[in-house]
């Protein structure tokens, strides 16, 4: 309780510094909010100048899920970064950033593989480890709001006149192509988007398999708020296919896709001065990361964290008979790691969450959604 008061106190201070939210209603589930709460601590491990303590981190979430950004901290961080870039520091930044993303992907797959076989203690340990890796990527996600701009300015200052190193094919463009291929495959089996939506899930086994496999592969694409439906959910995908391709000329889609496949003609960085080459390489990774930042963490939640939570739920149920698996989403990560679950606290948080109808409406969350994602409906 004391910790909650402290947290609310620090949030209030942050809110006072910047009264208008940077973004409203972005994250509402206490478990996900608590990861954001730890992102400041994670950010200090990144090794960027101007981020020597948690207080230097410019972002805070309040209990309504509103994100506050402290512009003065952003300005200080931006200034510190600008004078810090050398080929060596850029390489360190790049290695750490790439390493954090790769480690999260590996930890997600590892958690999924071990969850079914793990004992309660191991699931707890794995969930804490996975959460720590998620918070680090979240910290990069916050930094992505301004670090790429700093890098672009540094490139201009260094005399680079090329266009920014956008990804040759972004995560979104790949998703577009894969979704179109699913649409075509279903059509080839006589399932128009209308028919698919009307008959789902009572469709042919072949089509059911196609959609399910697509969902498994594309899990991670979706809104930032975990509980808001995304590509992990076949119902969402079936509705999206209808929305995306109904009354659309297939040739028009192909034209858009062929546009996306155009080779990008950019000057080779091999002949560029060392600093420009380093800046372009690092900025290129950040631009790709911008397209994948939500995917990394959302995929980690669905692929890695959900199986761990399902494993942990069984242990909680033995201690608290009325415990529901979705109650775990109303714990904070430190409570989950410590095995703490106070039914009264969970009830209060759940009540506060379900009362926030504006948030639920914005994110398309219906009353059964939380039980569905924990596989307990």
């Amino acid at each position, binding site marked *: 309780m004391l910790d909650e008061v402290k947290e609310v106190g620090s949030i209030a201070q942050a809110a006072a510094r910047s009264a208008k939210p940077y973004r409203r209603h972005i994250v509402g589930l206490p478990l996900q909010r608590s990861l954001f709460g730890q992102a400041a601590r994670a950010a200090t491990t990144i090794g960027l100048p101007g981020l020597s303590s948690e207080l230097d981190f410019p972002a805070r979430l309040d209990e309504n899920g509103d994100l506050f950004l402290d512009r003065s901290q952003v300005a200080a961080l931006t200034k510190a970064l600008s004078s810090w870039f050398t080929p060596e520091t850029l390489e360190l930044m790049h290695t750490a950033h790439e390493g954090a993303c790769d480690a999260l992907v590996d930890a997600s797959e590892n958690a999924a593989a071990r969850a079914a076989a793990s004992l309660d203690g191991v699931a707890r340990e794995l969930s804490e480890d996975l959460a720590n890796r998620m918070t680090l990527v979240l910290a990069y996600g916050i930094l992505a709001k301004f670090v*790429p*701009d700093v890098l*672009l300015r540094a490139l201009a200052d260094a005399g680079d006149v090329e266009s*920014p190193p*956008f*990804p040759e*094919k*972004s*995560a*979104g*463009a790949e*998703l*577009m192509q894969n*979704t*179109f291929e699913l649409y075509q495959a279903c059509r080839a089996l006589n399932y128009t988007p209308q028919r698919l939506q009307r008959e789902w899930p009572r469709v042919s086994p072949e089509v059911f398999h196609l959609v399910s496999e697509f969902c498994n592969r594309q899990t991670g*694409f*979706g*809104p*930032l708020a975990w509980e*808001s*439906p*995304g*590509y992990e959910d076949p119902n969402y995908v079936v*509705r*999206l296919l*209808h*929305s*995306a*391709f*109904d*009354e*659309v000329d297939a040739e*028009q*889609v192909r*034209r*858009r*896709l062929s*546009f*996306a496949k155009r080779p990008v003609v950019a000057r080779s960085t091999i002949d560029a001065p060392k600093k420009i080459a380093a800046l372009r390489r690092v900025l290129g990774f950040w*631009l790709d990361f*911008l*397209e*994948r930042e*939500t*995917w990394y963490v959302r995929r980690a939640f669905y692929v890695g964290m959900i199986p761990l939570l399902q494993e942990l739920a069984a242990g909680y149920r033995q201690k608290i008979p009325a415990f529901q698996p979705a109650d775990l989403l109303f714990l904070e990560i430190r409570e989950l790691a410590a095995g703490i679950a106070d039914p009264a606290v969970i009830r209060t948080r759940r009540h506060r969450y379900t009362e926030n109808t504006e948030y639920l*409406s*914005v*994110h*398309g969350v219906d009353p059964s959604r939380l039980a569905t994602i924990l596989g307990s409906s």
Partner: protein
Amino acid sequence: MSAETSTTVHSGLGAAPGHASGKAYVIRNAEDIMAVPAGSILVVRVLHPHLAPLLPRVAGLVVEEGAILQHATTLARECGIPAAVGIRDARSLFQDGELLEVDGYTGKVTERHVD
């Protein structure tokens, strides 16, 4: 007697080149993405990658948040869809069905009103 039209121009940043015109369709909540009219000008706060499959059906993009380096820029450029970013409060400024013109070179969005 013919109706007269007036225009209001909103300035942002040109994020993906080209010109487009069409009726505005404003994404205000998650459910809105399930009913995007073909040929519309999509008005969003941020164009997240998970919305990419909807792009082939839209004529242009208007994005509230914006800088040259952000989600919308990459995707819109890749798909050849004219886009203006940094149009503050676009989702409040524009109503569904309103006629908009997007200049993806300059970032100007022209709102046409029939008086």
